[in-house]
């Protein structure tokens, strides 16, 4: 290596300490299996477990099937076909990504429930019992709402895959005698499989991790059970057992995804050339395509956002008080703090990876450090809480005479715990943009700069910083938005009285006060649209 980059830092020990820290919460939860408390288990099996397992499986399978159908179908239509509204829907269908599932859930419930505008109109028209309406608290409705909220993951991935496949692949399969649809089924779809699997895994993990939407819908899953065990019964042991079971589901989902993805990393990038010709849909087909894509956009974005706006307009005078600004301030503080922390950590990891490129152990360490993204917020909260108790005990043992109330209590302790939890969970989010920023720094660039007379410090200031800036800013923005939308970990770990927008939404929706949850929800959706616009702009050039 060049004599300039041999900084005398003990990179590897620092890396392993960091990895250990990131894995601590998972380790603590898994250690619950070492000393199982059979009494708690028996109670869980007797009372809850059947329902929890059934609901979780319904959620898993329902969401998998529906996000694939919606996501892949829409991606194929907008990426490969031309129909009225296609240009607009192409990017509009990404917008629902800005909406947390719990916001979609409660605003749609408000629309569809008794007392909502739709039911009111039907009752007026057909009499109170003169019409059929789907049960808004049924498993089918849960799957429906989750799919509307989560299909964009599959849509984005599949769309990128279809666009990247390039025309030549499809032309080749046409030359070999396939019809356009045959080419889709036998070439495009199999080639997009890794992308579809990845998108589907993201959607399923979101569904498993979700707490807000299922509690709004009264659909008991592990996350709601963990919450009840913790806050309702103050039984951290039961919460831990439940968390470890949920972790098992996540692990299974991830394994299945890896299996589906196989060893394939298909790609071809000849799709960036001249404008691709699309399949032009006419007549009935065009009408169906527009209706299908338009309806999804309407249900997943326009209607819920419209409902939210109507509600918050009606409540604006009442809700826009000092308390609301406090909520916003808390939310932004946590978001910015966690974002800076995670981006700094990601930069550190990225630099270590660059220095030790090709080192398998380092590679493994980095994978382990970013494992936290798979942890549902409620599981993570339990893990962090156990860590703190453990630390507190150690502290008491070390300094028996010192007055202490445990690290978990007190505002600053609680905020630190929260920031740590966010770091574990969202480090992977920051890694992506930071690493792509680091990738721009080819070794020859630094050498060229040195050759032109720049000292190491100058290289850092004139080369690294400007090259990294976009990646770092993107990472900060993305983590900030994720943290602001995060509900379960915030709910469980926040210091008393330190409410955020997401917590406020949970409080109001759990009392059925949809209107009063609307204003914070609008704020979150607005913030959530920021990174989505980035995505849209990035993909619009293609």
């Amino acid at each position, binding site marked *: 290596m060049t004599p300039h980059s041999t900084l005398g830092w003990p990179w590897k020990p620092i890396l392993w300490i960091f990895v250990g820290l990131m894995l601590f919460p998972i380790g603590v939860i898994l250690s619950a299996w070492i000393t199982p408390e059979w009494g708690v288990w028996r109670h869980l099996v007797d009372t809850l477990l059947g329902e929890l397992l059934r609901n979780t499986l319904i959620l898993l399978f329902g969401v998998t099937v529906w996000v694939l159908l919606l996501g892949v179908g829409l991606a194929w239509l907008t990426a490969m076909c031309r129909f009225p509204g296609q240009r607009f829907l192409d990017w509009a269908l990404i917008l629902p990504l800005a909406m947390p599932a719990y916001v979609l859930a409660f605003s749609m419930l408000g629309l569809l429930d008794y007392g909502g505008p739709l039911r009111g109109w039907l009752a007026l028209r057909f009499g109170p019992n003169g019409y059929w309406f789907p049960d808004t608290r049924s498993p089918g409705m849960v799957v429906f709402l989750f799919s509307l909220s989560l299909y964009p993951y599959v849509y984005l991935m599949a769309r990128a895959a279809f666009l990247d496949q390039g025309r030549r692949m499809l032309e080749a399969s046409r030359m070999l005698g396939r019809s356009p649809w045959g080419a889709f089924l036998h070439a495009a779809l199999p080639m997009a499989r890794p992308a579809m699997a990845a998108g589907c895994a993201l959607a399923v993990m979101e569904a498993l991790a979700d707490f807000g939407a299922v509690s709004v819908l009264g659909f008991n899953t592990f996350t709601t059970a963990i919450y009840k065990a913790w806050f309702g019964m103050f039984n951290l042991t039961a919460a831990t057992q439940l968390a470890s079971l949920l972790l098992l589901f996540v692990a299974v989902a991830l394994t299945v995804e890896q299996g589906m993805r196989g060893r394939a990393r298909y790609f071809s990038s000849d799709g960036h050339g001249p404008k691709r010709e699309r399949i032009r849909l006419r007549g009935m087909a065009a009408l169906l395509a527009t209706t299908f894509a338009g309806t999804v956009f309407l249900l997943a974005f326009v209607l819920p956002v419209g409902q939210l706006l109507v509600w918050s307009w009606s409540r604006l005078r009442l809700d826009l008080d000092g308390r609301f600004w406090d909520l916003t301030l808390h939310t932004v503080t946590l978001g910015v703090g966690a974002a800076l922390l995670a981006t700094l950590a990601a930069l550190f990891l990225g630099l270590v990876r660059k220095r030790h490129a090709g080192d398998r152990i380092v590679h493994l360490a980095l994978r382990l450090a970013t494992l936290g993204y798979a942890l549902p917020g409620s599981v993570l909260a339990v893990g962090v809480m156990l860590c703190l108790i453990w630390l507190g005990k150690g502290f008491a043992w070390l300094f028996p005479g010192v007055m202490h109330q445990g690290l978990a209590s007190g505002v600053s302790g609680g905020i630190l715990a929260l920031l740590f939890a966010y770091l574990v969970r969202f480090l992977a989010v920051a890694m992506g943009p930071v690493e792509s920023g680091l990738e721009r720094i080819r070794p*020859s660039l630094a050498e*060229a700069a*040195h*050759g032109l007379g*720049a000292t190491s410090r100058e290289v850092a200031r*004139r080369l690294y910083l400007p*090259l990294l800036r976009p990646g770092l800013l993107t990472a900060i923005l993305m983590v900030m938005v994720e943290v602001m939308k995060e509900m379960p970990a915030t709910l469980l770990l926040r210091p008393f009285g330190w409410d955020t927008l997401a917590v406020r939404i949970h409080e109001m929706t759990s009392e059925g006060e949809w209107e009063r949850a609307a204003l914070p929800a609008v704020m979150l959706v607005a913030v959530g649209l920021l990174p989505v616009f980035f995505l849209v702009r990035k993909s619009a050039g293609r």
Partner: protein
Amino acid sequence: MRPATPLLTIDAISCGHDPANPVIRELSCQVVQGEMVSLLGASGCGKTTVLRAIAGFVPLLAGTILLREERLSAPGFTLAPERRRVGMVFQDYALFPHLTVEENVAFGLKGRPKEEIRTVTRDMLHLVGMESLGRRHPHELSGGQQQRTALARALAPKPALILLDEPFSNLDVDLRERLALEVRQILVSQEMTGILVTHDQHEAFAWGDQVGVLHEGNLRQWDTPFALYHRPVDPFVAGFIGQGTFVAGTCLTPNVMQTPVGLLQGTPQPYRPNPGDPVRVLVRPDDVVPDPDSPIHARVIRRAFKGATTLYTLQLDSGCQLQSLFPSHVDHAIGERVPIRVATDHLVLFANTGPGVTMECVPSAIN
């Protein structure tokens, strides 16, 4: 006549990560002011390592590198690249993606008065014919334009010499040759000294007043292109440069060799055999000429039309294959028997012992 003190002196340098098995072994050469030099070798021969050692990115295990009298590198001492006054053009150009063409060129001029920076940048862009593209970003340029920008950037701080690391290998063939000549002319017009690293013989020959042939970390020959082709010092260089076939034979008199392609006459070098010694003679395609009176016949087994000439692969009755370059109007079909003669005035000759004997009478190094 060479000036008394060379510009760059590379004295018995070795470098590499493993001291027991260095990538470069005891390499020495000298470059004078204003000279154009090529380092030629197959990939992995260590030619880029030499360049990076000169630039200061690779420390030395042994030897010294001097720029005029100033010591640049020695074991345990590596002057920082930014203090060497050595410019470099990289294979991937290494243009800074966040800066415009102008800003890229001005990068190395930091600390000078604003007015000077502006003039130098403008002059450099003018020199490489990029004056109208100064406000573009690197990704908006074609390969050739990026190349020119990289050159202007390297020249701007007026370095003592310029290193070029396979700078044309990313361009298509047509542009490559044109641009290589153009870059050479620009450097010559600036009285600059340029060291080019390449794996392409044509490029090395077109560029270099002197060409160094590297093989497995050793400098095998350091000479003019003419000398490399006609007076290779060892079988490797003979096989590596140009096309040709080694023909086994026996020495009859010091200037006459008995071979399957007849009696070959000429002054032998570098090996001077005694009568009776087994030898290997290098036969170049242009040494083989059609001769209706010759008793030696060969059958055409392949032919490649090249425009002005046609390259034939001929097989003698002994099974020995030769390559020959005939004028295009001498037209033979595949399978036809052609009377040939090997016309040599000097013989490139090696002892037929040691490794490489198996090369006997098969085409070596077809490019």
